[in-house]
């Protein structure tokens, strides 16, 4: 049971959140100009590191805001939490 620090509501149990996978994967500005491989990279390929991972969570049972978490995928330790548009500060 992770304890996730919602940047708006403070620390809450993992059960209040929805996981959103890798953070900072921007929707391509001009999808039509991408070739199939590039489009596949956007749709299907995500980083899967063993160690620190920038990921998105949404506080679904609380303020319903998406935000970013830097979390170690081995120790599960939350290293940083930051709002959309903010930089990670550890």
């Amino acid at each position, binding site marked *: 049971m*992770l*304890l996730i620090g919602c940047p708006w509501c403070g620390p809450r149990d993992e059960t209040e959140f929805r996981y959103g996978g890798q953070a900072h994967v921007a929707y391509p500005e001009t999808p*039509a100009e991408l070739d*199939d491989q590039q*489009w596949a990279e956007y749709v299907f390929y995500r980083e899967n590191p063993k160690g620190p991972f920038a990921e998105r969570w*949404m506080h679904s049972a609380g303020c319903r805001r998406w935000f970013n978490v830097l979390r170690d995928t081995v120790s599960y330790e939350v290293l940083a939490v930051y709002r959309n548009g903010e930089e990670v500060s550890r």
Partner: protein
Amino acid sequence: MSRLPAGGRVDRGTVLRFSVDGRELTGHPGDTVASAMLAHGIIEVGRSIYRGRPRGIMAAGVEEPNALLQVDGPCSEGMLPATTVELYDGLVASTLSGKGRLDPTPDPAVYDKKFVHTDVLVVGGGPAGVKAAAEASAPGVRVMLVDDQPEPGGELPSDVVVLTRTTAIGSYDDNYVLALERRTDHLGAAAPANVSRQRLWHIRAGRVVLATGAHERPLVFAGNDKPGVMLAGAVRTYLNRYGVAAGSQVVVFTNNDSAYDTVRDLLDAGVEVAAVVDARPEVSVDVDVRILTGSAVINTEGEDRITGVLVRSLEGDAVESFECDLLAVSGGWSPVVHLHSQRQGKLRWDDSIAAFVPDGAVRNQEIVGAANGEGLWPTRALWLVPSDSYDTHFVDLQRDVTVADVWRSTGAGMLNVEHVKRYTSLGTANDQGKTSGVNAIGVIAHALGGSVGEIGTTTYRAPYTPVAFAALAGRERGDLFDPERTTSIHPWHVEHGALFEDVGQWKRPWYFPRDGEDIDAAVARECRAARNGVAFMDASTLGKIEIWGADAGEFLNRIYTNAFKKLKPGHARYGVMCRPDGMIFDDGVTLRLDDNRFFLTTTTGGAAGVLDWLEEWLQTEWPSLDVHCTSVTEQWATIAVVGPRSRDVVSVLAPDLDLSAEAFPFMTFRETTLASGVPARICRISFSGELAYEINVSSWYGLSVWEQVYEAGLPYDITPYGTEAMHVLRAEKGYIIVGQDTDGTVTPHDAGMAWAVSKQKDFVGNRSFSRSDTARADRKQLISLLPTDGTTKLPEGTQIIARDVALTPPVPMLGHVTSSYHSEALGRPFALALVAGGQSRIGETLMAHVGSELVPVQVADLVLYDPEGSRRDG
């Protein structure tokens, strides 16, 4: 071997009656079943699981490997260590041979959970834990202590929250500790009703102090499993806590000083100690008992209980025998590091005490007392007593694993303790190797020549002690297993005999049978009413989202495959949304309330997912758009009034509205006040192809307005209908149900909705349509199927194959039936199906594989009923 005349923490003034294996026994409050059995001189319990050897009570706590009980009760429970079952009056139990029995009687007990937060959590109420809790206690600081015994081992400040009979079973990330409290198990029939039998505590702690103590290890020698061989510390516990002497003539076998405390206490209690056999060459203790140093017990005598032991010097050959009925053994102590290890805490081998000890604590935790190796005795490791045969040197008593078994595994090539565990099943029994784990590693090291520290332990897994499934289920059982979501109109449906369908968590009326009707008859009647007269259904479960903002139209343009930006206020439009992979994700009708406000509907099951989807795009991709979404699913009750006579009904309800097709055309809506005074939004939307109105009112009025519709419709024999009739009506029109006619592999084009895919704008998923596989012309496409015999209703899920295909597996399949109904309107059964290249097969005959029969079917256009759409205007 009996209850001592004095001493112990049992209430001798009260006698409790109980029985074990049919023997009527007595004990006192404060006893466990084990201590009360020992007080009667009974040490033997169920025989061993595989070899059928006699076994006895060996320990005094959770580490007990042998004494397992099946305890009777309203629901019998098995595999409970007799050393942990508190005695109550009337307890009836039988001993087990390593295997329990599940009672089919429904468990009547209540289980609950508790979620609490504390600054400090101390696990363990022994001296170290009590001290840690007392030290942590301070004004404004929340301190909790949990201990598995009925009372903590010392005085605690009053502001410390103490949970007794509570075992910390698991330790999880961020100091989340699970602890099981046994609230009424010790009360027997006196347990109060409505109080949970057991409670699972979810404790989030700022700091965790582990004061979990240590478990004593037995020694490994021939015949070390017989009844009468008992851990020295347990012998002492029975003396001091329960006032019970577990034997009358005792030999002690040890490799460390801790056993001498037992010797002293036995002597103080007047119990004869025949000898102490100490594996260490030199011993400096002051007890008035003969000590054989540098020696070991090499075998035990007796069958159902030991009658004596054979002792030999570890260096020499001379064997001496001693009579005894109890052999107290101590092979050293293992700190209870389970909770530390569950958090990936490191361990190191400490040679001086021959034990794995924590190598530093995990973040925000500390380990105190014996759990940290503190105060444990210098120990001479003696992993096994040398012998000619190792077939009765038991390492894991509960799984009947001997030294010979362990060495067979290492001989087979296994170098890793995990392999040995799996080859022998060592350490996997009910006690999870609490007494056997470290000894096993010693035995492996003996065979492989490495050090115990290098070999390392197996992983410690939660739970620390076994927990009943029902205790983990807690309150979410039976009626409360999962929420049933219901609409404001639900009471009417129940009263009128609806049968319900589960759609997500919602209960939706499936159909409303009249007396004697089966589903086919009821649905046929409901469909006839909608096509020929008037019918109404509760559509309140549809997801509803208000979308405000100057960019709301632009936003919907990006989300839906079709265009919404130019939709006029007062108008409605059906939309489809896709995932980035181009596959249909949800659909529904959206109203434009005014320039900057839309009202979007989703499928019943999709509501939460769609709102999340919209918010995700808005918050993470397009935060600059002026758009705000608000879920209003339960705000509105939605009543669909359907059929040629629907206008007559609605005109009674909403007399202020001009309902003519010209004044109130299809795919528009009007705000009005009903004759009853209820404000309403009425839409000309049709999911049936008939003239239809959807009346939306505040769900406060949902039931009332539903009844108003019913009243107004009585002259026209208005008929309530459920999801099944809805499905028939929509399928006749070729309207899809997302999730039934689509399965995550269907594009809007595949579903016959190319018309809903804009070529003028981009939207989520658009790019995927041009991928080579997605652009194939022979993809599976949704079409209708008409069984050519005009009578066969194809089962949903039927596979479709080409004509003249041999039925030799694997048979090439063209697709499958997604929806299939008997149509009253068409006077025949029909189906929707996803068929490869279906749209170019219209008119072709294919075969439906039904059971072992092949049923010819003709491929037809998706829309079978009123393809011109002439009926929707009435």
